[in-house]
């Protein structure tokens, strides 16, 4: 428990934080624009949606599941919210509809996993397609203009700081406390560590899994509203491919895909690193195609290093 440099470096949060700093320092020297307020705000906004959605994803992964549907749920809830706004003109109703769409998708994911015993990978892969399809059906494929409270959430500022960034920090604190201190949070870790032992120890693992999938859906719904608000338009294709960024942020932040291990602070760092890398490609004007390649490589690298390290430890 002492501050031993070696054990400190073994913590994935620390090594990713160092990577984050290295990229930031490099960009600060390589381009003049990086440290401008405008650019930093932009990076913050990008990080905020990934981080918010990744908070839910992290809990799912810690409980030994995975939620591949978050990108589509972002699109579906954005569309639902914008359509209700268009139909009723009520901001409150629109916001509720967006969050409810996300929560509903999450509850369905949870029900498929706990009641029908479908593997989470397959259940949420199905949801990925279904949710996107419904978003396209509802809109006929045409973006819905969206303004009101959502615009404030997506593009507004509180004393100069983007509202979504403030929300990100608030949610990180809340989820961190809930994960480490609440009974349900502790059960999430126990279920992910050894589901059989957790069940026999009297933990309601179906309930725990339901909670994490529902929460992941809810946060994806919030992410959808923020993204649509930022663009003042709800595109049914919104959030496409987002699951990759979100899962990458979680894994980079030190959460093990095998479950039972992971920190919420790490998720924040992982999300910021992903946003910073996106920003780097733009600032250094490297082809966007390389960006896609690099994102994939980073995930493989992060998990690969972890696997190598643990493989060396557990070999008999």
């Amino acid at each position, binding site marked *: *428990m002492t501050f031993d440099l070696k054990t400190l470096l073994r913590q994935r949060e620390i090594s990713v934080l160092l990577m984050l700093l290295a990229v930031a320092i490099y960009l600060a020297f390589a381009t003049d624009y990086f440290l401008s307020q405008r650019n930093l705000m932009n990076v913050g906004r990008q990080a905020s949606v990934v981080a918010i959605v990744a908070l839910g994803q992290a809990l799912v992964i810690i409980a030994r599941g995975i939620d591949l549907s978050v990108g589509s749920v972002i699109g579906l809830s954005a569309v639902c919210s914008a359509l209700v706004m268009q139909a009723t003109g009520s901001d409150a109703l629109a916001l509720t509809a967006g969050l409810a769409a996300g929560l509903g998708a999450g509850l369905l994911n949870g029900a498929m996993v706990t009641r029908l015993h479908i593997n989470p990978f397959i259940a949420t892969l199905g949801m990925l397609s279904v949710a996107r399809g419904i978003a396209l059906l509802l809109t006929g494929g045409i973006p819905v203009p969206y303004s009101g409270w959502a615009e404030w959430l997506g593009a507004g500022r509180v004393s100069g700081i983007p509202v979504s960034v403030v929300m990100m920090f608030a949610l990180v604190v809340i989820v961190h406390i809930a994960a480490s*201190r*609440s*009974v349900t949070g*502790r*059960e999430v*870790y*126990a279920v992910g*560590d*050894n589901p*059989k*032992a*957790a*069940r*026999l*120890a*009297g*933990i*309601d693992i*179906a*309930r725990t899994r339901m909670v994490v999938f529902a929460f992941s859906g809810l946060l994806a719904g919030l992410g959808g509203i923020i993204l649509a608000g930022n663009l003042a338009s709800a595109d049914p294709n919104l959030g496409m491919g987002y699951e990759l960024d979100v899962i990458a942020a979680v894994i980079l932040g030190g959460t093990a895909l095998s479950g*039972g*291990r992971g920190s919420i602070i790490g998720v924040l760092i992982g999300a910021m690193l992903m946003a910073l890398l996106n920003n780097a490609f733009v600032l250094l004007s490297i082809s966007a195609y390389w960006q896609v390649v690099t994102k994939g490589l980073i995930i493989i690298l992060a998990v690969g290093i972890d696997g190598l390290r643990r493989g060396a430890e557990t070999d008999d």
Partner: protein
Amino acid sequence: MVAGISMAASNPSAPLLRLEEIGKSFGATKVLEAVTLSVAPGEVIGLLGENGAGKSTMMNIVAGALEPSAGRVVFADAPRRFASISEGIEAGIAFVHQELSVVGSLSVAENLFLGRMPRNRLGLVDFAAMRSASKAMLAAVGASDIDPGRLAGSLRTGEQQLVEIARAAARNPRLLILDEPTSSLTPHEVSTFLDYVRKARLAGISIIFITHRLEEAMMICDRLLVLRNGAIVSDRRPAGTTKEQIIADMTGKASLFAYSPRTNPSDKVALRVRNLADRDHVSGISLDIRQGEIFGLFGLVGAGRTELLEIIVGARTMSRGNMELFGRNHAPRTPAQALQAGVALVPEGRKTAGILPQHSVRRNASASSLRKSGGGVMVSPRGEAERTAAELKALAVRMRDDRQPITTLSGGNQQKVVFARALLSGSRLLLLDEPTHGVDIGAKSEIYEIIRRAAENGLTVIVASSELPEIIALCDRVAVLSKGRLADIVERDDMQEAHLLRLAFSEYEKQQ
């Protein structure tokens, strides 16, 4: 195959296997210390010892699955260091493990010829040849009742064991190592199997026989070796040796398995079970378990002990019958509901079903009692620390700090942490499934004390165990299960090993 013949030509009086000062450590833990042993051709050695004494490690070194840290293995007059199990097999050593490795979805014949199936002219598997050869292989070990065409997965555990033994015997080994070969065999199978052992001995095959069945070992073996804490503590001939001497050698204290009379439990019924059944493993079970009683469940592998406990704790669906817990209907659908009703389980298989391997000792201990404090929403860190510290101290868990990972503790201490978890849940009925499996002697006797103390404190305890001495040491009464049915409930005064074993086999006898 050639090895079996050439052996007869070599010097018959020289030992086939010699272990010289073999030592083995895993990290800081010494598992074997200066073990010296020699086995003559055609000799049958009984290797006895408690779980964790080092028997399996020793045999794995002989078979080439493990490297010794010190000393050397001399096999057939030459120092050997097998780099792998297959080299050991080449040299004529066959090891039948306790953990079965038959492939359930293949036939018995295919299992027997796995990796070396005979082919016909077209290059396809010659099933007819394989079948007749399989018949002969099975008959050789006294298992001619097994049809080679059956799916291996549909066989009983004991039959699967015989298939594995037949496979090993067919390689014509010079040394055959059998790890608990008779633990799931019916008496009939045991006697035909022992015939095979006698025949093999006459053919000059040396056999090392790991077993917990003392009577069998004394009947069939030429020498009985007892291993305790990694060292050979006695080397006796069966003639003139008593069971009591062997138990004292194994445990280091004759008193480990001594029953200490307890104040009689109350007449109040804690758990009433009526005509209980699940879909496939147990049926027609009726029991009355009294408050404060230590009640045993004994049976062979597959008798339904674990399944019965799982029904009581809500981890398995009950399809018929009913239960009453302290006068209230008890039909939990999940272990979480059972815990609410006051039933906690210490499951079988510490690694797979007991510990949370990435959690600390403290968090492992508190896993069943998280909702007990702080209104059930938030965990109070201080309350948790205090409650777990007190319980871990009471159970004498040896550790540096309760925040260290549970996997850094010894097996016995890990098991005590799982006990602490169950006790902290405040349950009134404690279910224990193989509570001392894989723990060392010291921890074993401490765990017996913990169980007795829990019962003295008014908890009702059900202990399921496959170890007869354990059942007899602990229990006030014992229910013997056979093939998922209740054979009988035996009172303290009638608890003799032979009687309990006979009951455990009763359903098999009916069939034959």
